[in-house]
């Protein structure tokens, strides 16, 4: 195999699929108008749940490939968290920030609970992870998901409904949209994708799991990725490639540029800042504008003057 392809398969693609899926899920979630500050927690829960899921076929002799089972369990548990967050924030007019951050810390705990005992019992998880070349198929699958979701958001009625509840839930409700149902769909779908990304993070990229994974803050980097790409499923592709590449090429950059390790770690975050600055000072700001009602408590019977 040619060396460049090796580099791509080993270094770029695993990071790309992770960031792409997490930021894609986050984008769908936020398009429905709910501010997602739980992203890093849900991402971490995804990793723990994937670890637990991946060993289930071995323990119970289920005829499913362990990493696939890991992905299924991770998406399911993340979707349940999405159901909770979307419904609570649509039902009650309370702060999205407070609920999101609380859910983040709760999810860190859930992630630890799910993964810790598996980690103690099984030292290495190479055996239940995806094979090295599988990342090619996973990349293709996630790209297909991204393109389909883009068409689904931009072309179909349910996509219009998701954008409508993100822009103005009051008008949407008056038009006949079930705000609760639509936000739950977007919430579960969005979080499921974040869980999927979390699962690939350990089963394809790291192939190891540790209690302290959440201190990396990769969920927050995906948050920045989504913001820098204006929550656009197609624009997310190059931006995720860039960020995934930067994160995973830190050591290379470090030696090539001769900079300290701590500075090299800053590079992806600096790139996120730079992209956001660029797009907020140009016309892209209008095209990639956040949903108008993002983060605003929704109170159905609001009286306004």
């Amino acid at each position, binding site marked *: 195999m040619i060396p460049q392809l090796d580099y791509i398969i080993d270094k770029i693609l695993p990071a790309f699929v992770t960031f792409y899926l997490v930021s894609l899920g986050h984008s769908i979630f936020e398009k429905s108008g709910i501010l997602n500050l739980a992203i890093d927690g849900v991402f971490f829960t995804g990793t723990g749940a994937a670890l637990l899921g991946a060993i289930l076929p071995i323990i119970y002799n289920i005829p499913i490939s362990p990493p696939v089972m890991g992905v299924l369990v991770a998406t399911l548990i993340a979707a349940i968290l999405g159901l909770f967050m979307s419904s609570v924030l649509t039902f009650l007019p309370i702060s999205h920030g407070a609920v999101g951050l609380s859910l983040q810390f709760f999810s860190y705990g859930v992630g630890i609970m799910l993964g810790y005992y598996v980690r103690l019992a099984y030292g290495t998880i190479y055996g239940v992870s995806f094979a090295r070349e599988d990342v090619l198929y996973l990349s293709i699958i996630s790209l297909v998901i991204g393109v389909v979701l883009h068409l*689904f958001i931009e*072309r*179909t*009625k*349910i996509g*219009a*409904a998701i*954008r*409508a509840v993100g*822009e*103005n839930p*009051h*008008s*949407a*409700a*008056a*038009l*006949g*949209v*079930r705000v609760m149902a639509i936000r739950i769909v977007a919430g579960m779908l969005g979080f499921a994708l974040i869980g999927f990304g979390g699962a690939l993070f350990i089963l394809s990229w790291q192939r190891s799991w540790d209690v302290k994974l959440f201190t990396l803050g990769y969920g927050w980097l995906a948050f920045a990725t989504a913001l820098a790409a204006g929550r656009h499923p197609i624009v997310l592709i190059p931006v995720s490639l860039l960020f995934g590449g930067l994160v995973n090429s830190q050591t290379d950059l470090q030696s090539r540029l001769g900079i300290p390790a701590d500075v090299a770690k800053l590079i992806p975050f600096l790139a996120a800042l730079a992209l956001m600055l660029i797009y907020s000072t140009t*016309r892209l700001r*209008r095209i990639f504008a956040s949903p*108008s009602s993002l983060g605003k408590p929704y109170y*159905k*019977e609001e*009286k*306004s*003057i």
Partner: protein
Amino acid sequence: MSSPLLSVANITKTFPGGVVALDEVSMDFHPGEFTVILGENGAGKSTLVKIMYGIYTPDKGSIILKGREVEIKSSLDAIKKGIVMVSQIPQLVDRLTVVENISLSLTRIGMFETMTRVRRFFKEVSEKIGIKVNPDAKVWSLTYTQKQLIEITRAILLDAMVLILDEALTYLPMEERRKFYVYLNEFKEKGRSVILITHKIPEALEIADKIYVLRRGKLVGALDKASANIDKIRDLMFGEAAKTITYERFTKPYETPIGDIVLNIRNLVVEGDYGEIAVNNVSLSVRAGEIIGIAGVVGNGQRELLEAIVGLRRVREGRVIIDNHDVTNKGVKLTRESGVGFIPDQPLRYAVSADNNIVENVAALFSRKNFVVNWKSMRELSEKLINEYGIYPPRPEMHVKLLSGGNIMKTVVSRELEYASKALVAYNPTRGLDEATSTFVRRKMKEKAVNSKLAVLFASEDLDEVLQLSDSLYVMNRGVLYGPFDPVSTPRSKIEELMVV
């Protein structure tokens, strides 16, 4: 007489903070009838129809559709039962296209369906009633009239049994309105029911078969076509206060002397929320003691213009000069410190901090430069404003969010009029106030302009208000300012035409 198609019985609705919006209201709506619900701002008309359309839930009372008691849980529920509402402010999502908005209401369109069929439906109906709108245009790029016509098209597509028009026709140009009356008559003849909400008595008399009058949340009269006349309805609508309400001018234009130019706006270009040109090359000047009114339908750039003048919105081109100082793009702090009072659109959101009390809201403006707030003097000032403007309940420690809409507006207006020493910039200064209080506020504005030599620039969606108060008036339509006009000699029809054409 036939049995009613839709009835409401003993509907009561109280909003958080104890504001009683509706008190035991019962009404019948018969098939083939045009029913008008009349009442001034805050009488509870909109609240009542929002209950019928599933936006609010009543505290008490029932809704009876075709003889059967029903519960309307959401607007989707109402649409399925054949009840459709068109509001005064178009309830459309701005960043979606016309057909996307329409599709959200059509239950026959599947969730995963694309816009192909909706586009065809929309074209059929819009051709039939003669509307020219690009079905794939984003809603924010349309005019008010176009948006309202889309709402009406939507109501037709939904094949409603009961059509509720909440001030939906009030601001439509005469030509479009007539076109629509023809359609409504057809609709009536098919045995369906139309409910029109308005605060304009002539509009009600124009078309009503039956009139209900609401005052302060109570049903105070039910009249049929034969027995209704303006004076009778006026007495019912305003009660005792009818005598103090006037749309007569306080003085003739320019009867009192005016001074030097205070507000000087030169060739202003301002962008709207979507990057479109909202204010297009606007120039005007306001002198001390002069009142300039801007008439226009909501969403024609008035809000953006006023925000740019006080420094809340970036000016792309042109200059804002206040009292001979260029304050263009120098921020709201400077304008405020030059003695400019400002009453913004959506006062609950932008003019007060709803979680703080009246004293704190007063102090936020008057003690802005002090490191330590003198609460005693702020309390005295608040008490003075409460007494002068009759803010109810008269408690300075009352949290603003617990006041009724009208009292919040009074708090804002009194504070800004008290603060303004050079100029007042206001958007809909009497929005949400009852007519008697509106007259009072307009009188205050006039007094203050004359006595303190205040330069007043205000925009209002209420043309009567502009005609009553201004020394000269302008019309704003799609970002362009027309005028000045003399409020007494200019024919009303000419102004109305400029507002919408």
